[in-house]
């Protein structure tokens, strides 16, 4: 019961201390990504929320005023590292509380397992990060187009063959193709811009 209550209050306290628009934006932008990632890595919903808080706290400590220093490399890579280590730390802590110390592997076992697990975790982070950008870009692009165009594209996105879509909307396959191309180009440009903003130091 007590543990349940600490979560929102902790977050609130953190927010109160650094009431900064940048942080709020960060939370809005990355909350979904971090939670999704933790869930895919096998964390339960409550654990994922805990990890998110841990990540926020660590970032605040490491990046006062959320000024990211580009010399550390790409922000997404850095964030991925923080998220992964937070997840591991969190899971270790909770497993130690519940089951006692984990059995000791030999050095070699650990290395093999860790390498594989690390590569896997990185790949999933990359996937989720890409997914996040796709979703945001798609949202932006949807708002730029007329509803009909959006509807046509939604059908294509749902996997309907182009000629079916054309028939359904009473247009030509060429027109559907054109829409597809345009949206593709806009998505690419939008994602490019998003990443530019993300990588800009001190954003």
């Amino acid at each position, binding site marked *: 019961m007590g543990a349940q209550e600490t979560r929102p209050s902790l977050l609130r306290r953190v927010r109160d201390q650094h009431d900064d628009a940048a942080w709020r934006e960060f939370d809005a932008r990355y909350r979904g990504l971090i939670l999704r990632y933790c869930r895919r890595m096998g964390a339960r919903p409550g654990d994922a929320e805990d990890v998110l808080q841990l990540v926020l706290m660590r970032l605040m400590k490491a990046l006062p005023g959320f000024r990211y220093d580009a010399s550390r490399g790409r922000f997404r890579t850095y964030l991925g590292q923080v998220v992964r280590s937070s997840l591991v730390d969190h899971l270790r802590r909770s497993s130690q509380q519940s089951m006692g110390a984990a059995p000791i592997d030999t050095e070699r076992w650990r290395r093999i397992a860790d390498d594989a697990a690390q590569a896997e975790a990185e790949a999933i982070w990359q996937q989720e990060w890409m997914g996040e950008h796709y979703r945001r870009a798609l949202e932006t692009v949807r708002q730029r187009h007329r509803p009909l165009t959006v509807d046509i594209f939604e059908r294509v996105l749902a996997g309907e063959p182009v000629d079916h879509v054309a028939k359904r909307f009473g247009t030509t396959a060429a027109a559907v193709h054109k829409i597809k191309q345009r949206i593709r180009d806009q998505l690419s440009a939008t994602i490019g811009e998003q990443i*530019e903003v993300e990588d800009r130091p001190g954003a």
Partner: protein
Amino acid sequence: MPDGPVPDSPVPDGTMPDGAMPDGAMPDGPMPDGPSRAPREFGFEDPGDVWLQHLRAAVGAAAPIDRLGDYEVLGEVSRGGQGIVYRARDVRSGEIVALKRLRHGTYSTPTEIERFQREVTLAAALEHPGIVGVRGFELADGQPTMALEWIDGEPVSAWARPGGQRRPVDELLAVAVQLCDAVHFAHQHGVLHRDLKPSNVLVDPTGAPRVVDFGIAKPLDVDRTGLTASDEFVGTLAYAAPEQLRGGPLAVDVRADVYAIGAILFEALTGRRPHEVAHSLADAVDAVEQGKIDRPSAHGQGVSFELDTIVLKAMAADPGLRYQSVDALREDLRRLRGGEPILAHPPSTWYQIRKLVSRHRGVCASGLMVLVLGVALTVVTAVQSSAVLRAQEREALAAELAQSVAGYMHELFRGISPAQAGEAASVLGIVERATERIDLHFDREQPMRADLRSTLGHVLSDLGQLDLAARVLREAQELREAQGSSLATRLAARLQLAAALDDLSDYRGAATQYRAARDLLAAAEDPKAHAFVRADIDRHLAEILLLTGDVATADERAEAALAVLLARPDAPREVLAGARRTMARLYAHHGDLDAAADQLRRAVALSREAYGDLHPVLAEALFELAQSARSRGEPEEAKSLLVEAEEICRRLLADDHPLRGRIHGIWGRLHLAAGELEPAKERLDRAHDILVRVRGGRHESLAAVLSGRVQLAWRTGDVDRAEQVARESLRILEENAPDDPWLLPAALNNLATVLAKRQGETARAEAEQHYRAALALQERGLGPDHPRCIHPLNGLATLALNAGDLDTATSLFGRCVALGERCFPRGHWSTLVALGNLAIAHRDRANLAAAAPGDEAQGDGPQGDEAQGDEAPRDYTTSLEAFRRALAMADAIELAAAHPDRVWILHEYSAVLDEAGDVEGCLAALRRIVAAEPAGSTADRFLRSRYILASILIEQGRSEQALGHLDTLATQLRDRPEQGPAGAKMLARVETKIAALRQAETPAAK
């Protein structure tokens, strides 16, 4: 090896396409110009709708698929790490198929997709009742999709225990035999499965196993990072051979599939995986690598001891201890079902002996140990696998043999030098006794007698006993043929014999055996399956063709062999290394030394991978690379390679092994080039001794040694001996390689060079004839721009120079220099000599022009009068320039200061400087010679230069310096062991000069 133009077409090379691919990395940060674009990995630039797939996955809109290409999707069957399988109908034919869409990202680059397509094409060609047919392949929405024959079957693991109750063992064995049939069939067609597991082996309602997914499994190490569901990964792991976990795709061969079948059988028999690991990936990897597997009988009822043995042998951690083919495994399963004795036996005596040999290989300096153990091994193996003897007899005989071998080994390790002759005799005695014994025991067992002879022949040839080896191997080959042995066995016998004959320089005999082996392959039921063997035969044939002069066919064969090997990622590294070495010989033959070196470096790396750091084959590859370095004018590189090669030989091969002789030969020539005559002599003598004694004095490698000896004799002034050696080498080569553009010209050049030193018109004319013959052979065989043409050109030019034909001489030396500079941009000794000679020819022309101006003036009036005076200006500019270029090259190639060629060039240079009036320059050149004189030397060239130096110093009034040199000279001349009349005369003159100087000095001092 002959060193030697380059086919311009690049060799197809597996590494090229990857290297040439733009790496998929995206640029850092935004693009400087134009609108932003998403990084590459988002897939917007990829062909097809890759981006749409990504987007779909991101928004979570799983597409409702009802149609994929030409297939109507009827429903989803399964979803796994590799992809999704649908049940679908081909709208064209109405046939029901299994449609497999590979997981997105499994093959992402065009290269990967192409490779995948290639493999699928290969697999699709497999028509076998036990292999699920591939109906089609396409990229649907940019995702690789395969249509497979629809099978109503269940995974073999489920089929094995319907309702939790295991089927009878014999029923399982029947399925296992059929599974082996199918997999072996694929192997024969060059397709490995690499990912055999119960879910890939479906048993249909008639009880027949059908194998799915041939050729599409990616190497495990790639999958390891790609798989997200670790349960599935552990599932794959349980059937993966240890070498699959350790190494990349190259580490995997048919034996990995043998292992997997063993694992599947284990599971079918016991209902559990060989490595039962509950959670941890690390546990699973470790268990597989350790290869600790329970006997199936420990977990399953009714599993016999023999069946345990078969499964454990199939799953041995060391691939070398497994069945070497799926066919062999099938054979044992078949024998077991038929109640015959199986061939597998628990790893006992022979394995332990082999281990012992590998541990003590370094100790077996003479190789005799290898002989004993090799024979013992064959005997023990033969005894143990004998179907005729009863088990008890087998064990007893094997134990007895093992014991005597062990006893002998202990004796050797106690410090007895195995290299001693007596020891050798006793070893041969042991071999003989073993042979008799086996012939006695296995009177009716012809294959074993042949086996024994093969091993014996192999070891004997390793020991350099080539004649004996060839004899024994021919016996083995004839036995095999007479017995109507299997194709593989007869093939092996032919190839072994061919190699021995090749070593013996019996090229015709070797070629006959290689061709016979090729015919065997051609007559095989399935010639395609032996692509690697054929490639290996072809490259050996290419080498023989090269040696016997048919270069065009040699090129063709070698290139085809390499192309076949490069096109197949599973080509064995040792075979590829061999093909690269052959290509190197051909490149060298055509004069492209850099391309040859490149091939050889790859061959060395491949040999290292294939054989480890301590193996005769590696030593041979290093030796060839050293030869190439020497030919390229890189003596230091050559030396360091030779040091490693020699160390390997020292530890593994007999002292008189031919390879050691060849290494001595190249060392000798390196010393010779560096002017180190003593070590050169020692090495060349050892090489000569080994090659003449062991190889019967009729091998190509002897030619190089003979040339070295000619040069050595010449350098030490023994012209008679040099001529004798040169005539001998010419005779040897005329007999063996009358059309060879390499060997014979070398001998012709050597002899001509010696003859040119001789006095008299006869010798000169013969020399010219030999040079011309050599040049003609080389120009015809190698092309006029080949570096080898420098030598006879230089010789002809020198003859012209000595005969006073200066126009011809300058023109020919000019050609030599130009050719040398073109062929050896970094400088070469032969260019240096040509430059020195060119300088002399120019000098003589200048002298001639000055001495006989009338000749030239006749046509051109006015010049004649001008040059009438005594001091006609002599223009030595071109001559001096050539001398300076020569000396600069001597520095560039780091020619020793005391090297005779540097010394004579400096000497002549000083004389021309003196003539040109540059006294200081002249003195400086002479001082360089004197300073280079090795302590204790009494060589004429140094004495002469010192005498001239002193004389000029006297003229210049530098008496004190002159006196110092004259004193040194006097001492040297007196100390000379053999004082010829010329020496005595010189001493008298020196003493006179000293006296005159002293006299002039005395009154001045008073």
